[in-house]
């Protein structure tokens, strides 16, 4: 079992972000932690917790005492296994030694740091409130606090970004010796400033070919630094894949705590209220859906194929999809051995098209 805890507070919204987060409501964080703890009380579990992930939003905005209180409360209510991986997302410029101290003593043993790019003009363009020096500092402070397992996020196909700038960002972040890298192609989500600009033709961004070249550059450069692709957007040193995210892709159960947090328990998916006031007032699940067996089987594929090693399908999923899989194996997009299936490199690039065809 895994825990996800959503911290929906930000200094400001980034131009591409469609996650549920609120700028300018930081004063409500203590009440929010109260609400999180109340939710833990409402949603107990006896299963051992193997991974905890504090995501956001900006978890590094939580004041150190609140972070400590939150981690303590979780540990008291759930059965943390001894080697539990506890990750927190942190933004450069918003991590302090006090916060890191609280995190480390609360058990946080992994940080995911939102570096995004190394050029100040690009960071400004996407609305990130920090520079690359802040990222370097965050890495140093984290290590000083004893957290070794560090990951960085970078974005590509950004407006105004060239292949050269992208390679520069890759090399700059590699110099920080992360154990893990997440490289995200910019996705335009409805409701974001970038989406609207793009719809009006005002977002000069790299085309499909340039985006592809950026991905290829990463695949060329990273292995030389000991980081290997294990998922569509994720690279890690051997043994350092993010356990929490692998849990999502292998459909392990997780309890999502917090405003707009999602959960999967068995085959029940639920979503919490995405309105902060409603959540603070203790609103019950906003949506809950029991997946039909064939939907669950499709999720096995949709999620499992994201990983380079693929997934060993359940007997049901295999019987449903093996004809389609055979078809894609023939076309060089997929491989199968027994019930384990995985995408070829080309297959991974066009995974949506493959899934749309396999979808029941």
């Amino acid at each position: 079992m895994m825990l996800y805890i959503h911290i929906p507070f930000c200094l400001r919204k980034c131009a591409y972000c469609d996650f549920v987060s609120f700028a300018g409501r930081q004063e409500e964080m203590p009440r929010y932690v109260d609400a999180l703890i109340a939710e833990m009380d409402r949603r107990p579990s006896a299963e051992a917790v193997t991974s905890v992930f504090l995501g956001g939003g900006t978890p590094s905005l939580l004041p150190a005492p609140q972070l400590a209180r939150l981690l303590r409360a979780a540990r008291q209510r759930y059965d943390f296994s001894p080697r539990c991986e506890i990750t927190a997302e942190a933004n450069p410029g918003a991590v302090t030694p006090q916060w890191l101290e609280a995190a480390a003593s609360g058990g946080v043993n992994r940080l995911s740091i939102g570096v995004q790019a190394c050029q100040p003009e690009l960071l400004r363009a996407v609305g990130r409130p920090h520079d690359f020096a802040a990222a370097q500092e965050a890495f140093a402070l984290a290590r000083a606090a004893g957290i070794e397992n560090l990951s960085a996020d970078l974005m590509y196909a950004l407006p105004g970004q060239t292949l050269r700038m992208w390679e520069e960002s890759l090399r700059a972040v590699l110099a920080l010796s992360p154990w893990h890298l997440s490289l995200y192609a910019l996705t335009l989500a409805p409701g974001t400033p970038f989406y609207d600009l793009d719809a009006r033709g005002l977002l000069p961004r790299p085309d499909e070919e340039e985006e592809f070249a950026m991905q290829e550059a990463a695949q060329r450069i990273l292995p030389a630094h000991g980081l290997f692709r294990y998922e569509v957007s994720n690279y890690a040193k051997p043994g350092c894949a993010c356990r929490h995210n692998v849990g999502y892709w292998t459909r392990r159960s997780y309890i999502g705590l917090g405003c707009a947090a999602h959960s999967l328990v068995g085959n029940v998916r639920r979503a919490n209220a995405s309105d902060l006031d409603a959540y603070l007032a203790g609103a019950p699940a906003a949506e809950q859906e029991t997946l039909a067996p064939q939907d669950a089987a499709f999720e096995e594929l949709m999620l499992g194929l994201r990983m380079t090693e693929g997934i060993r399908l359940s007997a049901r999923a295999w019987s449903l999809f093996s004809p389609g899989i055979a078809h894609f194996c023939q076309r060089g997009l997929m491989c199968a051995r027994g019930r384990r299936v995985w995408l070829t490199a080309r297959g991974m690039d066009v995974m949506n098209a493959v899934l749309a065809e396999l979808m029941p």
Partner: protein
Amino acid sequence: MKKEELIRNFCIIAHIDHGKSTLADRLIEKTGVMTLREMSDQVLDTMDLERERGITIKAQAVRMPYKAQDGNTYVLNLIDTPGHVDFSYEVSRALAACDGAVLVVDASQGIEAQTLANVYMALEHDLEIIPVINKIDLPSAQPDFVKKEIEDVIGLDASEAPLVSAKTGLNVEDVLEAVVKLVPPPKGEESAPLRALIFDSVYDNYKGALSFVRIVDGKVSVGDRIRMMSSGAEFDVTEVGYFRPGQLLPVGELTTGEVGYIGASIKEVADTRVGDTITAVANPAAEMLPGYKQVQPMVFCGIYPADGSDYENLRDALEKLKLNDASLSFEPETSVALGFGFRTGFLGLLHMEVIQERLEREFDLDLITTAPSVVYHVVKTDGTELSIDNPTNLPDPADINYMEEPMVSAQVLAPSDYVGAIMELCQQKRGVYIDMKYIEAGRVQIHYEMPLNEIIYDFFDALKSRTRGYASFDYELNGYARSELVKLDILLNGEICDALSIIVHKERAYPRGRAIAEKLKEVIPRQLFEIPIQAAVGGKIIARETVKAMRKDVLAKCYGGDITRKKKLLEKQKEGKKRMRTLGSVQLPSEAFIAVLKAD
């Protein structure tokens, strides 16, 4: 005075936009058949489409009592004729039901191609032609100039022509007086066996197919047993009556010279064909009225439901339209690319567009239509002859001795500044120049002999754009001519897409093939694999384009909170695919089928 002496049967002929319908409305209003309040504009054009396009598709008629200046009350029957070349046979039958024609000419536009075509047709039917100059209220009106034009070009005396404004009602009574004075009363033998000319037929949900008739000889009453002289089919008359605007007025009988309708529980309009003669079974006429022919569709295309499950709905809709349209023909066909649909025949392009629009609007159907084709004559090497309306059915080139295609005689009227542009276009469309006449200083009539298959695509649009809308265009069919024709196939990923095949002239195959391939490259979305698009004639590739394989189509992120949402995105992607046609491994959007039409 004999009853017929007080009847006048006439029609109004005009170029599109010259005010035919407005004048008709004004006449109806002046004779008091309808008050202004009862009339919505242009009462004779009853279909929405007719109003929008400003054209008349079905003939209509209206009976107007008129107390003339001579003190007599006359019955004026106005028969409104369809206003488009596609319906020229219907027009000819409507004219045959009249004794006179009011020729409306726009006071500022003067004579146009259709004006001439209509006049010639009216003259063929020996109609008394009354020129009327309309829109004299416009500042640009030049009535004297137009009068002279009528005299010079048509040879009609226009000195007495009423100068009217149908819009304001100015001098409209002059038109009524002219009709009474100049249109001859109907001739015909009241005591002779019944002969009624069907000039239109309309389907009514309650009464069945109604025949719109002019009683040439004899009379017809409710209870009579009648016979359609062309088919021999017999029916019992259940109702006869006159036309009021927008409604039918039952009466006991229709007598010689009258215009009205006959209802006889006839199932569909195909049983009461325009041009046929109705006679009485009890005392049958010896001879039909002249001029009957069964019209043949000239233009064919495949009509397919965009969603295959709508096939039955499409069939029902076509059957319903056919009840009221004897010239619409359809039969089932199948296409590898499009599945099940119908090969549908039309009188012409306008007829085709009207039917397609009615299917989509009135029956809420989403359609995919293939490129229109004309009917080709094929003479095979073994001497057998075939008529081909679907490129897919063309025999192997090795088995073809020669082919013939339908030709038209085309008249273009335009300001002389555009002569060069028009001739260039006609030449490009394989037109053969016949002659050119200066109608007056600055305006010419250009006459070309052209293949019908060149004007069914975009000729009219191209003409309009090259002459900034100033040219008018009319054509009539003019037999078949031998021609070097080939089948142009489009191959996607090496497979022929049957629905994209067209028959073209040998010399036009290369540019058209290239244009279609380029257009397809634009409309076919990138797919998992590269898609070669090839245009081929008889197995020889003449053009090639490639739709590159998609590079990247993958969700960057998919974590705990994203999963439900991302699944929905994939579902949408799958739905989008479902709306496309699958040909082998290629997904084709419906725009691909339009590309063939628009590429040039």
